[in-house]
C-alpha cells in the first residue's frame, strides 16, 4: 500500500474546497517554504500544515502511516546536512522537506484524483490555442498519481516472489521481474485506455466539468 497517495473520504472544509484553489494553496505554501530560510518561520508553516490535518480530520492511522514513512527521510536529510553544513542549515532543510511532504500529502488525502484531473484541464484550458491538449495533460497527471500505487504493488509482489525463492538479497531477482512486469503493465494499460476510447476522439468536444 502506498502510504503517501490515496484519497481519504471525508466531508471537512478541505474536502469541500475545489481542487484548483487547493492546488494553488499547496504551491503557495511550498513556495513560501523555499524562499524562507528562517527555521522559526518554517516551524510556523509546519504548524499551519499540521493544523490543516486537524481541520480536515485526517484519521490517526493515515497520519501515523505518513509519519512512519516521512520521518526517517526527514531525519536522514537532517543528519546528513548537520554533518556537512551545520545545525541551522540542517534544520532549515529538514523543515522545508517536512512542510512540502506534509502539505502535498494533505492535498492528496483530501482531493479526488478525478477533481485534480478536472482542475488541471480547466487551468490549462487557455493554452489550448497554443496546441496544448488539456485533457491529455490531465490524464497524464491522473495516471501518474495512480501509477505510484500500482508500482508499489508490483514491487511488493516481486519482492515476495524473490523471497519465496530465497533470493531476497539479489538485485537481479528484483530488478528483472520488476522491469518486465512494469513494462507489461504499461502495455496493458495502453490497451485498456485505447479500449476506453482514449487516443481516438478527433470529434470529441472539450471535456466540461
Amino acid at each position: 500500500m502506498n502510504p503517501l497517495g490515496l484519497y481519504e473520504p471525508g466531508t471537512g472544509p478541505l474536502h469541500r474546497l475545489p481542487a484548483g484553489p487547493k492546488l494553488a494553496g499547496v504551491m503557495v505554501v511550498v513556495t513560501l517554504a523555499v524562499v524562507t530560510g528562517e527555521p522559526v518561520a518554517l516551524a510556523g508553516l509546519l504548524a499551519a500544515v499540521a493544523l490543516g490535518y486537524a481541520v480536515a480530520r485526517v484519521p490517526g492511522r493515515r497520519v501515523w502511516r505518513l509519519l512512519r514513512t516521512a520521518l526517517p527521510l526527514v531525519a536522514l536529510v537532517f543528519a546528513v546536512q548537520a554533518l556537512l553544513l551545520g545545525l541551522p542549515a540542517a534544520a532549515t532543510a529538514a523543515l522545508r522537506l517536512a512542510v512540502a511532504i506534509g502539505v502535498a500529502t494533505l492535498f492528496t488525502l483530501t482531493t479526488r484524483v478525478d477533481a485534480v484531473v478536472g482542475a488541471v484541464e480547466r487551468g490549462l484550458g487557455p493554452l489550448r490555442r497554443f496546441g496544448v491538449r488539456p485533457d491529455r495533460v490531465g490524464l497524464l497527471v491522473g495516471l501518474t498519481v495512480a501509477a505510484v500505487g500500482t508500482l508499489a504493488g508490483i514491487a511488493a509482489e516481486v519482492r515476495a516472489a524473490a523471497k519465496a525463492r530465497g533470493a531476497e538479497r539479489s538485485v537481479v531477482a528484483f530488478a528483472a521481474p520488476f522491469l518486465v512486469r512494469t513494462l507489461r503493465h504499461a502495455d496493458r494499460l495502453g490497451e485498456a485506455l485505447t479500449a476506453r476510447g482514449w487516443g481516438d476522439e478527433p470529434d470529441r468536444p472539450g471535456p466540461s466539468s
Partner: protein
Amino acid sequence: MIEFEGVGHRYGDREVLADVTLALPEKRVAFVGANGSGKSTLARTVNGLVLPTSGRVLVDGLDTARRGAEVRRRVGFVFTDPDSQIVMPTAGEDVAFSLRRAGLGRAERARRAAEVLAEHGLAGYADHPAHQLSGGQKQLLALCGMLALDPDVLVCDEPTTLLDLRNKRRFVDLLSGLRQQVVLVTHDLDLLDGFERVVVVDGGRVVADDEPAPALRHYRALAG
C-alpha cells in the same frame, strides 16, 4: 453484427491468425481455444486493438482499420486482469473516468458512476480504493467501466480466469442479463450455457463453428 473477412495476422514471422471468415449476428458468441491458439488476438481485432495484417473486420459495417474511433464507441472490451484496466484510485472515479469522454459535468459523472456500480452489485463502493477490492469485485468494476459507456457489443477476453468458482458464475450470470451482444473468449467450458454459438480456434484458424455441444465436443477431441 461482427464480420471477419479473410482475417489474418502476423507478429513478425509468426502467423497467429489465418484466413478467418465469420459473420456473427448472434447475441451470445464464445471463442474457445487453447493457450496461444489466437483466440485473444481474434477478439482484439473486434475493437481495433489489433489491426489484421490481411483481410478486414467490420462492426455494423464499419471497418475497424479505418473507423476505429467509431468502432470503439460501439464495442466495449473487458480484459483478463482487471488490475491493468482500472486506472483511477477509487471505484467511482474509475467509472467516472469512462464518462469523461461523454462530456458530462463532474457531479453528473459521479452520480452516473454510482448508479452503474449499484446496478452491478457494487453499491456503496464508489469511494472504495479500487485496488483493495476483491478479485471478483475488481472484474465487476472493470465491467462497470465499460457498461457506463453503454456499448452495443461487449468483448470479454478470459474475464473469469482469475476468479474463483462463485465469482465466475456471478460474472457470467451478469453477462447473460445484458442487452449487449457479448463475445466471450474463454476456456471455462461450463460457462457456456445460454450461448448460441461457439467458435473453436486452433493454430490461428477456425476449426469448428457450431452450437455449444458439438463445438465443445470438437474442442475436447482437439485437447486429446
